[in-house]
């Protein structure tokens, strides 16, 4: 696949990739954008090669997931070694009025419920319900067996339904 073709594929899947990057970065928009930038450079520089064993989107989701995990590890190490003091004195961000209003929206109820799930459960549900992947494709992205993905899917779905059900009653 040459660079022009790669760019076309990336452009076509960009919106989906952004959503997945948001999920991999705990819905931190800036972090998600950084991860996506790194992924695009990695792919277009040829440091990550698509070998055609799965669909392009599934492969790209896998690259995004690994890049996000790697960035998270680096950020954790940086925080541990160098920026602990700076982070400790950094003030809490003040929520804007818009954010206050948004907080009560249904979307945020779902986000909060997702945040309460185990990481694997959150990932598989995001891939299946948000990105319309099959459980097999989700397993491929997550690098786990299909059986394991099915278990995470079933447990996650039940837990999410419970959490959202409780949220609804409140």
């Amino acid at each position, binding site marked *: 696949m040459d660079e022009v073709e790669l760019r076309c594929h990336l452009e076509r899947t960009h919106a989906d990739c952004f959503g997945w990057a948001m999920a991999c970065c705990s819905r931190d*928009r800036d972090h998600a954008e950084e991860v996506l930038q790194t992924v695009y450079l990695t792919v277009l520089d040829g440091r990550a090669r698509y070998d055609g064993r799965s669909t392009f989107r599934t492969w790209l989701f896998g690259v995004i997931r690994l890049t996000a995990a790697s960035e998270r590890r680096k950020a954790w190490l940086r925080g541990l070694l160098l920026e602990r003091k700076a982070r400790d004195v950094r003030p809490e961000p003040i929520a804007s009025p818009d954010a206050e209003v948004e907080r009560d929206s249904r979307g945020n109820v779902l986000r909060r419920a997702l945040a309460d799930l185990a990481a694997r459960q959150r990932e598989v549900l995001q891939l299946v319900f948000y990105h319309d992947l099959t459980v097999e494709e989700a397993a491929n992205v997550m690098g786990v067996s299909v059986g394991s993905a099915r278990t995470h899917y079933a447990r996650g779905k039940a837990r999410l339904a419970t959490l959202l059900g409780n949220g609804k009653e409140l």
Partner: protein
Amino acid sequence: MTMMDENELRRRFAELRDTDRESAPTFAQTYGRARTDRTTRAQESPDKHAWSARRPRLRVRPLAIAAAAAVLIVAVWMARERSLSPREGNPEIATWRAPTDVLLDTPGSELLGTMPALGESVLDKMIPTYSLRGS
């Protein structure tokens, strides 16, 4: 507790997806920013890049592992040496003698410790008189 059906979950995720898509940057913006960042980083530290290009890259990790292994070997060796060497002021039990052992040496104990023989006097053992006999 209200259990939701799968369609309700799909609908909620679809809403979330629509919200994300509205706020998502375009591909051109994301890729453009990535290239700009890379260019800026390369311009900010050209010396570093030049230095790294000139200098053969040191393999830091194998060196660190080798150093750690060397320190470990020396530490184990020193600990082993220390455990093998006899400590001062702590004599071994086989060579130790009690200070009151001298009290067990009774007079005539050498007579009781030997076998008497015919034609010999015990006095010969106590008083060496062979030189006198010979003369």
